């Protein structure tokens, strides 16, 4: 207990710093939000055309989604992916390596991994307070208020509870993947390309570009990848499209992924610091 308290005292300032640095770019957050929503707006026209052209018309159910559900899925998905896109552990590691500051940080009595994790958790917490909670309340308020999402109060509270659990797990997975990409930067400095591949995987396997239900059997396989926890699983959970026994299984799978990725990160870091060369001056 004492050591947890001691660790929190040591690392919470990093979380606060993460929050402050995110707050410094308020205009940028607002701009990214606008970009995300214009993007979803245009994607919805494509979905509208698809439903309009399906044999059953606008009231069709395609791959388990009515048009209204698809609208809600896309909006929630873009909101959630927006938050998962913030925080930049990979970029921070890249900067550490490029500027040689990695040498300084390694000499300090703080864990390199935990330093980055807490910085990211600060950013994530702020994004939840500023983006997810207010926007989610408005979106789901409208959908439930107008009867577009039919769900009882008790079931919705339970869905929100599991959504929050998945959000925390998603935060840990997201940062673990970011750190993994950061470890790759020790071997190649092309962060832009690596990040692009990561974003594509995250969008595609996470069901941001299209729900995994559209991918048939492959979609079921993809729903167990770590990327699914960065979008598809939390979004479907809050929409009430995942049954509770599956939710419990998903929670264990998410925990297993965190363990596996962190283990890989640990091994990669041990290898990376053996070969790192920093310019003297």
């Amino acid at each position, binding site marked *: 207990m004492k050591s947890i308290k001691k660790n929190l005292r040591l690392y919470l300032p990093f979380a606060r710093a993460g929050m402050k640095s995110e707050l410094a770019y308020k205009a940028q957050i607002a701009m990214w939000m606008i970009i995300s929503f214009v993007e979803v707006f245009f994607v919805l026209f494509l979905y509208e055309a698809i439903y309009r052209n399906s044999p059953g018309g606008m009231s069709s159910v395609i791959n388990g989604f009515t048009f209204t559900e698809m609208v809600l899925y896309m909006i929630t998905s873009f909101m959630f992916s927006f938050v998962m896109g913030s925080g930049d552990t990979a970029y921070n590691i890249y900067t550490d390596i490029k500027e040689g500051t990695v040498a300084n940080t390694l000499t300090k009595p703080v864990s390199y991994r935990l330093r980055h994790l807490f910085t990211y958790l600060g950013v994530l917490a702020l994004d939840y307070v500023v983006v997810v909670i207010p926007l989610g309340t408005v979106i789901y308020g409208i959908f439930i208020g107008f009867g577009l999402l039919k769900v009882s109060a008790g079931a919705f509270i339970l869905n929100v509870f599991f959504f929050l659990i998945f959000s925390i797990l998603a935060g840990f997975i997201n940062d673990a993947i970011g750190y993994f990409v950061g470890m790759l930067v020790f071997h190649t400095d092309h962060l832009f*390309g690596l990040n692009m591949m990561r974003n594509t995987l995250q969008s595609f396997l996470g069901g941001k570009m299209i729900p995994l239900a559209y991918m048939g059997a492959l979609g079921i396989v993809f729903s167990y990848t770590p990327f699914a926890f960065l979008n598809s699983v939390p979004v479907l959970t809050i929409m009430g499209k995942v049954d509770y026994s599956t939710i419990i299984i998903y929670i264990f799978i998410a925990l297993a992924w965190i363990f596996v990725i962190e283990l890989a990160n640990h091994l990669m870091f041990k290898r990376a610091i053996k070969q790192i060369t920093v310019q003297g001056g």
Partner: protein
Amino acid sequence: MRYLRLYLTYAKLSVMSKLVYKANVIIGIIAFLFGEVASLVTLYLLVSSVPSIDGYSIYEIGFLFGLTNMAVGIDHLLTDRLWTVAYFEVKLGKMDHLFLRPLPVLFQVIASEVQLEAFGEIILAVAMLTVCGLNVSFIGGIGSILLVVLGILCAAVIISSFKILVASLAFKFKRSGPLLQFVYGFSGYTKYPLKIYPKIIQNLLIFVIPLGLCLFFPFENLFSPVEHPILLAVSMLLATLFFASVCGFIWSRMIRKYESTGT
């Protein structure tokens, strides 16, 4: 002629410096190819869930996807440095040296970067145009194909001009990268038939940002040829020229506001 010679020298230097880090070039190309393949698979999964979209078959939509990707790829290949101008160079005052040379700054910005990663987009575009082109029945003849080629070139110029316009705002506001990201997204919306959008967006993509005019109309012309293709070609050229001139004019005004960083 002098500018062409200079451009080739700049471009050669850019390619040589990039090829020093071959692994990075390969990662970049694969990353872009990967991203585009993912959006193509997405499009396929979506469109294949219905018989057709507003009368367009999956191959026809794939062909349009290829046309847009080709225009985006050409722009990406030739004008990629505008991104760093919009995001960092003005803000960090890293453009001073460009102002000291006896050449237009815009020319130097464009000529000094040939982005090989764009081949990821171009390779996929060629594949899409070939595969989908073989599976659709065109009515138009060689003239229609030339119109499509002209459309791709005009669309590439429009995308680049739009980037020039938005990047130039950085001279006044120090950073215009996020805004550039926003407007760049418009190029992606012409990957789908214009008809799926409401009238207001269709008009926006035809009259304001004439990407729809240059990509969708020549595409349509392949299936139902227009009566006066020359008129369509002239309209595309004039719209592109006008759009590029306006963007160039705004760049020339904005650049006067450039301030170097103090010490």
